[in-house]
């Protein structure tokens, strides 16, 4: 399956919802009047795109109608598609290269799928011939270390771990030392889930980030914020706070295939301008894809 197919399959539910909705709104006359535009705005909100981003999109649509006088369904959809692509920006996948130390720091609130995503990323780069190390820096959640160890066994990757309840910063320190001495290409650090309004936990993350800077200043570091697509508008404040504390470089949106509508990807991109690198479109290994704005918009709102 190509990229587009995976996106189309994962986002099928949302696509049906959006296209059906637009079809219904414009069913009678095929052009949009002000009330129908209001309804369209609400449809966007229902897809978790968020009020602010939805209002922005609809302002663009209204502006376009004013300019061209074309209020046909085709024109409205075309404007929406174009503006969505503007919000999402260029594709910006994780930038790892063999032959140097790459460090991937996984962060996020509880239950978004950090450990699972760590495992999948590990499998993906393993297949590309990277020499990988996993660092189990989630020392808080019961059995998180074991969960990562299972992924380590599946992918035949060594896992650097301490005891449960130990200092995660120490794990990170050791993992970096191990990665250097074993000349690993990629070190994946799985951290504990933390709600972004907990200062102590966020400080802990800041400390981890500083240790990476100090111990592996020459390495290429990416901080990946994992966001559950089922999340509502809280995702925006997650992205903002984590970016402040841990210098998030890209986002991964997981569980896009599930019960989620997936619009939260747009909401977050609109409010934070942090690029989305990965999309979780299913439970299988190969369902973790590089995020492709074109494919995403096409799957969400086909022409």
């Amino acid at each position: 399956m190509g990229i587009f197919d995976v996106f189309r399959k994962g986002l099928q539910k949302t696509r049906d919802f959006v296209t059906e909705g637009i079809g219904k709104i414009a069913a009678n006359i095929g052009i949009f009047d002000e009330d129908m535009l209001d309804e369209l705005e609400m449809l966007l909100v229902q897809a978790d795109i968020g009020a602010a981003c939805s209002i922005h999109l609809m302002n663009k649509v209204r502006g376009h109608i004013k300019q061209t006088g074309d209020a046909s369904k085709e024109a409205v959809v075309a404007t929406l598609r174009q503006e969505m692509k503007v919000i999402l920006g260029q594709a910006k996948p994780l930038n790892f290269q063999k032959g140097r130390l790459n460090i991937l720091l996984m962060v996020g609130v509880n239950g978004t799928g950090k450990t699972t995503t760590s495992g999948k990323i590990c499998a993906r780069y393993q297949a590309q011939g990277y020499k990988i190390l996993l660092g189990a820096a989630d020392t808080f959640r019961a059995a998180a270390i074991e969960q990562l160890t299972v992924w380590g066994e599946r992918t035949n990757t060594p896992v650097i771990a301490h005891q449960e309840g130990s200092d995660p910063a120490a794990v990170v320190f050791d993992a970096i030392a191990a990665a250097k001495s074993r000349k690993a290409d990629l070190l994946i650090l799985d951290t504990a889930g933390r709600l972004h309004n907990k200062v102590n936990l966020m400080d802990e993350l800041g400390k981890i980030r500083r240790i990476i800077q100090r111990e592996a200043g020459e390495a290429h570091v990416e901080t990946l914020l994992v966001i559950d697509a089922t999340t509502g508008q809280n995702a925006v404040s997650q992205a903002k706070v984590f970016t402040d504390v841990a210098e998030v470089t890209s986002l991964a949106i997981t569980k896009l295939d599930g019960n989620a509508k997936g619009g939260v990807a747009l909401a977050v991109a609109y409010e934070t301008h942090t690029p989305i690198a990965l999309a979780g479109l299913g439970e299988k290994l190969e369902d973790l894809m590089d995020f492709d704005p074109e494919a995403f918009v096409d799957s969400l709102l086909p022409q």
Partner: protein
Amino acid sequence: MALFEGLSAKLADITAKMRGKSRVTEQDIKDMMREIRLALLEADVNFTVVKELVAEISDKCRGVEVMESLTPGQQVVKIVHDSLVDILGQTNSKLLVSPSGFTVIMLYGLQGAGKTTTAAKLALMLKKKGKKPMLTSVDVHRPAAARQLDVLAKQIDVPCFIQPEESDAVAIAKRAVDRAKYLLCDTLIVDTAGRMTIDELMMTELKQIGKVVNPTEKLLIVDAMIGQEAVNVALGFDKEIGLDGFIMTKLDGDARGGAALSIRKITGKPIKLICVGEKVDAIEEYYPDRMASRILGMGDVMSLIEKATAHLDEKKAADALDRLKKNQFTLEDMLSQFEEVKKMGSIKDVLAMLPGMGGKAVPDANVDESAIDRSQAIIRSMTIKERQNPGLLNASRRKRIAAGSGTTVQNVNQLIKQFEETQKMMKQFSGMFKGKKMPNLGLGKRGFPF
């Protein structure tokens, strides 16, 4: 997000423009309803629910009260708040107990909602109430899920039945029931694997497990951060297995938790408990009025007051107030106040409950939690005499105190200045109280000493 902070402030803006007008116009109401609609949507309340709710509220607002009120903005907020409380429903829905004497509680939810942690919290809560619970995990999908439950069970010293090698969830469930009965447990809590409602295979597995364990209470675990899909998730599970109620998790975050409103309105089933932290005892009863305030971003004043009254030592507070009246506030009183404040939890948590903070800790405000520790250390490094008479504190004493508390003389000076200012404030207060009985600060007989 900040755009929608403080619905009351927004509405006040609108109504300010109405001053001098004899009546609220249709346009005013329309403007207000737009703000309410946005506030609710930003709180992740389901769109359909918002639409109905706004229609109801706008009807009520056309009523007389709003127009005659001096502060229509406040009045509208009250109407919204009351409407939310109405929907959010009954207080304290108790957990069902099976008449057979063997209660089975089954927990369902999406991946990552917090089922496993909640299972352990529930077990600890029941244990504290004198029940004899057993935990079991029938999650055969997520690696180490069963182990996670086992570790938590050991922490709270509750029996736990797991079979990590077994891949048949139904078989595990069957054995778990036998085991629980053999151990003479009266409650079995079943933690299931996270799943989407659209995954038919997984739903079938759930139903089969249900047949085997015959659950008394079927609870859906809902993440407070969930978006517009909350309704479909709740309806999906309810349709497939028939829910008895909900538990909301991660309410210690800064999500508004609009999902609570959506699922209450759409399913009519009760919210039984809420989870408010990562520790195993962080599970609480659910109060509709507090949830309403949270959704509207009005702060959880009730919880704050309750937390304060629960932790303040009444006698100590009364003593302090007594001395305050006699104008004898000393560093020792200050020390005991620090202790009381610390008992209420982290300053951030307490701050977040104040109205206007919108239930979120402001990152820029950067409350220094260690400041209290430092101040305590400084006072503890003083002699009793010094504490009662800060006038004694000359330069050499201050140097000694700084060395003893591991701080600097500047820190000591700062604290003393802070103390003097507090004392000055107290003097003004005590002037107000003179000749009166114990002042009632609106908190019954327990007054806030600060």
